[in-house]
């Protein structure tokens, strides 16, 4: 039998104590993070759920004082603006990401693009809104859905570009080599072999970026502006949930507050659905060989 020296025993106790203390601290920190999250979600559901009914999704907003009405146009507007923004951001962003991960590219150009993307990600969203106001809204002569979509796309593109680059860099170099050695041209190799292998990672990145921008209000204030009526025209102002929630929330009317809560809940639910899709995609793991 082994005899344990007393000081060894003491040291072990001390280690156990330290481990226990750290564990407790970690659990507390986790709770501290989760509690506000659930408080926010819980409060949102409590306040918003009353305002949610069929009319909310199908009706137009009513003037103050008239009961009923909904935010159907804003739901549709959000879908349209975010959808168009995503299309633009995917085209530009995925293309940029492919370029950045291309081994043959010019290194200093790539670093410049990367730097620009990182800076753009850090620009306050209100500034993006003002920028698009200056370069799109003014020349076009008015607020428009298109301007709103462009503003959101400006925010989304760098996110998509960087996550695409990351997803592509995880594709084993052997695949690119094998494809080139088969006499497949470089651009086809990049698109049909490398990008296709990373498709899941790219999709995940796009959806996360989409979830991020779907909740933006500031870039839409001077671009899409908002609209009290049904409109899908790209050239006219369009309603969006975020803007509508903002407008209603700062109003003094009880009815509108209720609607604002409902809008916030719907918006949050839309984002959560997207996040859920992301989880189910990336949970299955990136499909790489072995």
């Amino acid at each position, binding site marked *: 039998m082994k005899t344990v020296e007393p000081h060894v025993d003491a040291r072990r106790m001390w280690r156990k104590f330290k481990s226990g203390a750290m564990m407790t601290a970690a659990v507390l920190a986790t709770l501290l993070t989760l509690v506000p999250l659930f408080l926010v979600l819980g409060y949102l559901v409590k306040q918003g759920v009353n305002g949610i009914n069929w009319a909310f999704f199908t009706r137009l907003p009513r003037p103050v004082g008239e009961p009923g009405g909904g935010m159907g146009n804003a739901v549709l507007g959000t879908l349209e603006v975010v959808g168009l923004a995503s299309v633009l951001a995917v085209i530009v962003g995925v293309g940029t990401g492919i370029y950045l991960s291309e081994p043959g590219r010019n290194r200093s150009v790539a670093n410049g693009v990367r730097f620009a993307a990182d800076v753009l990600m850090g620009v306050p969203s209100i500034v993006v809104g003002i920028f698009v106001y200056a370069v799109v809204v003014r020349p076009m002569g008015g607020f428009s859905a298109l301007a709103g979509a462009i503003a959101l796309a400006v925010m989304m593109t760098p996110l998509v570009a960087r996550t695409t680059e990351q997803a592509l860099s995880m594709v084993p170099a052997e695949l690119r080599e094998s494809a080139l*050695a088969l006499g497949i041209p470089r651009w086809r190799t990049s698109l049909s*072999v490398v990008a296709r292998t990373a498709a899941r990672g790219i999709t995940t990145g796009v959806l996360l970026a989409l979830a991020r921008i779907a909740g933006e209000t500031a870039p839409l204030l001077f671009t899409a502006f908002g609209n009290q009526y049904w409109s899908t025209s790209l050239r006219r102002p369009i309603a969006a949930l975020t803007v509508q929630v903002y407008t209603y929330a700062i109003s003094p009317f009880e009815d509108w507050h209720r609607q604002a809560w409902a809008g916030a809940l719907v918006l949050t639910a839309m984002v959560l659905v997207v996040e859920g899709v992301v989880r189910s995609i990336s949970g299955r793991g990136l499909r790489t*060989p072995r």
Partner: protein
Amino acid sequence: MAKIRLVRMSAYFGRTRALREINLDIPEFNVTAVIGPSGCGKSTLVRCINRMHETVKDARVEGDVLLDGENIYGPGVDPVQIRRRVGMVFQKPAPFPTMSIQDNVAVGLNLNGLALNRGERAEIVERSLRRAALWNEVKDDLGKPGTSLSGGQQQRLCIARALAVEPEVLLMDEPCSALDPISTAHIEELVLELKSQYTIVIVTHNMQQAARVSDFTAFLLGGVLIEFGDTKQIFTNPERQETEDYITGRFG
């Protein structure tokens, strides 16, 4: 007759020279083994023959490589066209993970923009898989992912993929080093069968393998071609002391 002819060919990575003025005639419808210690430039040598060397950043080639007498580094030669004529199999089998077995085989044809109908495609897939001695094992699972196969099967799938493009030359860079003895035997048998239709260059660290499958052997050391000749002669009666030392395992 020499299918491939290297004429004072040197290969560089940036400013370092990995191969120095190699002169080598690779005969048609034969297997040529390239042997030598690690880092001597074997992979670089074969990658110069299908213009893959230049895909590495800052890498370049000097001198000539003649394929059927025509310089593949001549002006106006498209590397993509050369790679279709000179196929390559790598050390680590890398089937495309998003593609089924049959798509892996047909990928070279599809992505090269050849318009094939379903029947022609299936025919080429079958013929390539038969030539790679894999058909019987996968004929009922052509739709399964290529990555679902064993390592040895994956390597034969990569051979089938290379053959589907109908190359004239097949470069194999240590094709068996990731495989078990049985799969290795499979591949060796295959090499012997394929040489009636293809010119094969195989890089190997395994002396027995070189002796078993090759007709000619090139021995490289430090980026220099030390000796080239008939495999039997190289292995029984080499001319150079370095060759003998390497083959008998005294270094490397």
